[in-house]
C-alpha cells in the first residue's frame, strides 16, 4: 500500500516530534531563561518520539511519501534503538564536564542526527538512503568537533569529514551504476529488475562494491575504519558513545535493507543473492574487520581508543550474520544491536564518569579504580567489558552465540573459527583494563571516583540489563524475530 503525502504524515509522527524538538531547542537556546533547560527538552522530545514510535508498531506496513520512505516492523525496531541511544547520550551529556557551552547547538544537532538515523532505517529509495546517510554524517562531523578548544576534537572532525566525503562520494558513484543498470532508484523496483532482467554481472558487482564502501564506512568495517580511532578519541565521550552505537546501528539498518529486500530474494528462511556474489565479499570483510580491530586494540593505552578498535572488531562480528544469507543471521545481527547498545553505552558511560572525576582517559588512569572510593564504576566497567568479550552469563555472550549459531548453521566453519579466535584475542585487552582496575593497587595520588545518582541510575540499569539478558533473553529474540519483516509492497 502506498500512502499519499497527507496520509503519510501520521506515520511520521516520531520524526515530526523530533523536528519540533530540534526547533524548540534552538529557540529555547536564544531565550535567557530557558537556556539551561535545552538538555532536558531534548530528552523529553526524544522520549516522546520513542513513545510515538512504539505506538505505531502495530500499524500495517506501507510506502510513505511516494515510496521514498517505508513503514515496517524492521524500521520500528531500529528507530527504538536510535531513540534509546539518543536518550542515553543526552542523559550522559547532562552530567558531562565536556559539554558546557553552546548547549543549544549541541542538543539540537544530536536530535537532528537521530532524525537522520530514523530516515536511514526507513528509506526505500537510493536517493533517500543517500540523503539521510549524509544528514547523519554532517551532524556527526559537527558534534565530533564540538570541543572547540581541544585540538584533538578539531582534528577528529576534519578527519571524519574527509573520510566521510570520500566514502559517500564513492557510495553515490556506486549507486549511479546501480541506477544505470536497473533504471530505478526504488529498492523494490531494483529487486524486480534484477529478478527478471539480465544485467551485466561485472557492472552490478562494481556498483555494489562501491555502495558497500559508503555503508562500510558508517558501520566502521575494514578497510573503511581508519576514521574510527581518531574520531572516538577526539569527540566528546557521549558523542563517541552515540556514534559507536547509533551510527553503527543506522549503517547496519541501511545495509540490511539495501542488500536484502533490494538485492536478494527471500526463499523463506534463507536468501538468494541476485546478480553479483557480494556475500563472499562481505565474508572476507567480516574476517578482516574483526581481526584488524582486535589486533590493533591489543596495543592501545587510551581506553576510548581501545573501545574504538573494539567497536571495529564488533562490526566484524556483526557482519558474520550478514554473510550467511539467512533470516537467522539477520535476526542475530538485530539481537546483537540490542546487547551492543547496552554494553557499549555502559562502557562509555563509565569512561565518562572516570573522566569527569579525574580528567583522564588513558588506561593507566584506571589504576586500582576498584580500591579508590566506591568500587561501583570498576565493577560496572568489568561487567561491560566481559560482556563485550562474550563471557556468559552476560548479554554479549548471547549475542555472539546467536551469530555463531547462524554461521555454523549455514556451515561457514572457517568464519566461525576465526570469530572465536578473535574472541580469545579480545579477552586479553579487555582483561588488561580489568587487571588495571582490580589487580593493580592505587599508588595514593589518584583522585577518588564516585558516581552520582543520575549516572548511577543509568549505569546500574545498563548493568542489570546486561546480566538479565545474559540469563533470559527470550523476549528480545522474539522481538527481533517479529521485527524482521521488510515491507516490499
Amino acid at each position, binding site marked *: 500500500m502506498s500512502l499519499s503525502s497527507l496520509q503519510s504524515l501520521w506515520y511520521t509522527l516520531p520524526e515530526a516530534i523530533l523536528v519540533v524538538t530540534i526547533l524548540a531547542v534552538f529557540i529555547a537556546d536564544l531565550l535567557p531563561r530557558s537556556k539551561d533547560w535545552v538538555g532536558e527538552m531534548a530528552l523529553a522530545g526524544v522520549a516522546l518520539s520513542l513513545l510515538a514510535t512504539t505506538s505505531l508498531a502495530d500499524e500495517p506496513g506501507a510506502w510513505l511519501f511516494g515510496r521514498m520512505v517505508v513503514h515496517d516492523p524492521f524500521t520500528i525496531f531500529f528507530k527504538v534503538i536510535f531513540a534509546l541511544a539518543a536518550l542515553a547520550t543526552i542523559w550522559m551529556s547532562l552530567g558531562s564536564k565536556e559539554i558546557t557551552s553552546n548547549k543549544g547547538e549541541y542538543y539540537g544537532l544530536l536530535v537532528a542526527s537521530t532524525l537522520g538515523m530514523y530516515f536511514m532505517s526507513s528509506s526505500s529509495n537510493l536517493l533517500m538512503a543517500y540523503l539521510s546517510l549524509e544528514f547523519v554524517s554532517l551532524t556527526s562531523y559537527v558534534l565530533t568537533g564540538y570541543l572547540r578548544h581541544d585540538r584533538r576534537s578539531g582534528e577528529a572532525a576534519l578527519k571524519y569529514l574527509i573520510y566521510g566525503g570520500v566514502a559517500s562520494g564513492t557510495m553515490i558513484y556506486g549507486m549511479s551504476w546501480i541506477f544505470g543498470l536497473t533504471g530505478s532508484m526504488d529498492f523494490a523496483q531494483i529487486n524486480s529488475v534484477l529478478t527478471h532482467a539480465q544485467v551485466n554481472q561485472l557492472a552490478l558487482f562494481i556498483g555494489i562494491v562501491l555502495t558497500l564502501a559508503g555503508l562500510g564506512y558508517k558501520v566502521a568495517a575494514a578497510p573503511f575504519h581508519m576514521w574510527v580511532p581518531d574520531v572516538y578519541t577526539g569527540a566528546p565521550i557521549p558523542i563517541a558513545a552515540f556514534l559507536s552505537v547509533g551510527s553503527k546501528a543506522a549503517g547496519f539498518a541501511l545495509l540490511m535493507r539495501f542488500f536484502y529486500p533490494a538485492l536478494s530474494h527471500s526463499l523463506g528462511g534463507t536468501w538468494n543473492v541476485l546478480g553479483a556474489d557480494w556475500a563472499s565479499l562481505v565474508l572476507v570483510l567480516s574476517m578482516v574487520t574483526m581481526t584488524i580491530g582486535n589486533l590493533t586494540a591489543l596495543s592501545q593505552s587510551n581506553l576510548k581508543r581501545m573501545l574504538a578498535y573494539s567497536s571495529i572488531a564488533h562490526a566484524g562480528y556483526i557482519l558474520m550474520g550478514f554473510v550467511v544469507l539467512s533470516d537467522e543471521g539477520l535476526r542475530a545481527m538485530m539481537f546483537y544491536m540490542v546487547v551492543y547498545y547496552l554494553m557499549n553505552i555502559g562502557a562509555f558511560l563509565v569512561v565518562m564518569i572516570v573522566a569527569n572525576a579525574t580528567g583522564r582517559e588513558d588506561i593507566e588512569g584506571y589504576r586500582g579504580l576498584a*580500591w579508590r572510593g566506591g*568500587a561501583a564504576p570498576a565493577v560496572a566497567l568489568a561487567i561491560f567489558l*566481559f560482556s563485550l568479550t562474550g*563471557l*556468559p*552469563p552476560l548479554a554479549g*555472550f548471547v549475542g555472539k*552465540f546467536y551469530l*555463531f*549459531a547462524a554461521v*555454523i*548453521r549455514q556451515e561457514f*566453519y572457517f568464519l*566461525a*573459527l576465526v570469530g*572465536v*579466535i578473535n*574472541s*580469545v584475542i579480545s*579477552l*586479553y585487552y579487555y*582483561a*588488561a583494563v580489568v*587487571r588495571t582496575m*582490580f*589487580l*593493580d593497587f592505587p599508588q595514593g595520588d589518584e583522585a577518588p571516583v564516585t558516581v552520582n545518582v543520575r549516572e548511577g541510575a543509568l549505569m546500574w540499569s545498563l548493568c542489570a540489563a546486561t546480566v538479565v539478558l545474559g540469563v*533470559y*533473553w*527470550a523476549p528480545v*529474540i*522474539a522481538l527481533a*524475530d517479529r521485527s524482521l519483516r521488510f515491507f516490499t509492497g
Partner: protein
Amino acid sequence: MNHILTYMTFIPIAGMLIVLSLPSKAHNLIRGVATAVTVPPLLMAIWLFVKFDRTQAGFQYVEQYPWISSFNIEYFVGVDGISITMVLLTALLALICMVASFGIEKAVKGYFALFLLLDGAMMGVFVALDFFLFYIFWELMLLPMYFLIGIWGGPRREYAAIKFFLYTMAGSVLMLLAMLVMYFAATPHTFDMTKLMALHGAIPYATAIWIALFIGFAIKIPAFPFHTWLPDAHVEAPTAISVILAGILLKMGTYGILRINFGILPQETAQLSYYFLGALGTFNIVYGALCAMAQKDLKKLVAYSSISHMGYVMLGMASFTPQGIQGAVLQMFNHGTVTAMLFLLVGVIYDRAHHRDIEGFGGLASIMPVYTGVTGLAFFAAMGLPGLSAFISEVLVLLGAWQRYPVLTAISASAVVLTAGYMLWTLQRMFLGKANEKYLTLPEIGPRELFTLVPLGVIVLILGVYPHAVLDLMSASLNSLNQLVLSQQIALQ
C-alpha cells in the same frame, strides 16, 4: 527433596548475594555467613550419598524445565554415578576451603562473594545435563577464578591469572563451536545430553567435534601440551583456591570427557582414545613426575604431581575395562582429597615460614610433630601406599589398562617409583635431619587447620580399606558407559 540439585547449585549463589549485602568491615560476620552457606549443600550431598540408588545406571533427581524455547535450551539437571562422586567432592571441599580461607584479610567481602559464586558454578557444571547449561556454568567459573587468583594471589598473580583465563577461554570457545556444530548436525537439534546420547554417535563431523571437545577439556585436566598454565596458577593462587583448582577444576576436564566425549560420541572415543587418552595420559604421568622431582618450591612440586596423577585418570579412562574406568573415576575422587590435603599443608607451612623453598627447611619433625604426621599421611597417600585411598585407584587403573595397553601400563607403573622418589626425598629434606635454627619456634598446626585436614585424612584412610563406599556409587553408570564404548569398538573390529 525433588529440587535438591537446584538447591545445591543456587544456595551458594544466593549466599553470594547475602554476603554482598553485608557491611564490608564485618569480616568475621562475612566469614561466618559464607561458611554457613556451604553447610546445607554438604548436608544435601551426604543425604544424596545415602539415598542414591546404586543399582541404577541412569540419571536421578532429574529436573527439567524449558528455558529458551527457540533453541530448545533447557534447565536440565540430574546426577548419575559419575557426577555424584564429583558433587560430593565439591560440597566437601567448598566447606573446607571456606574454613581454610579465614586467614584472608584483604577485601574479605569480595573474596567470599566470588568464592561462593565459584562454588555454585562448579556444582552447576557437575549436575548440568543440558549442554548449553553446562557451558554457561563452565564459563561462569572463569570470572571468579580470575579475580581470586589475580587479587589474592602471590607475587606473579597477574601473569598467572590472565594465563589461566586465556588458556581456559581458548578451550571453551572450541567447546562452544563443537557444541553448536553438534546441535545443528544432530537430528533432532538439541542440547539435551540424554537425547544426544540416545543418538549413539550418529552425528556428522563427529571426529572433528570429538577433537575440539577433547582439546577444550584437556586444557582443564591439564594434559600435555596444554598444562603450562597449571604450575603458574597453582603456585600464585591463595591456598584455598589452589585446593579448589586441583581438587575440583582439574576433574572437570576428565568429567567432561566422560560425560560428553564418551557418552555422546562413543565411536570416536573407541577410535581415538589410545592416542589422546592412553598415550597422552602415560606421558602426563612420567612427565609430571619428572618435573615434580626438579622443583624447589613445595607448591610447584604438588602442582606437577597433580599433572602426573591426572595422567592415571586418563589412562584408566582409555582402557575400556570396568576396573580401569572405575579406577579412573575413583582416582578423580581420591586425587581431589589427597591433593587438597597437600595444598592445605603447603598453606600451613607457608603461613608460618613465609616461603615454600623445600631446601630451606629441615628437621621440622622435631618442631611440628603433628604437622609432620598429617603431612606424612598425605604424602604417603599421594605416593600410593597400600592401605591409603590412592593406592586402590592407581592399582585399579593399572590393572584395567594392563589388559589393553601392556606397554603404556608398564611405563606408567614404573613411574610410581619416580613418584615415591620425589615424595620421599621431599619428606626427607623438609622433616628429617637437623632442625633449622631459624624455625625452632614455629608454632604447631592449629585447631582450625586441623579441622580442614582431618576430614580429608579420614576419607583417605576409609577409602584405603573400603573403596566400595565410592565404587558402589558409580559402578552401574560406569559399566553401562563402558559397555557403550566397548560395543562400538567391537563393531569397529
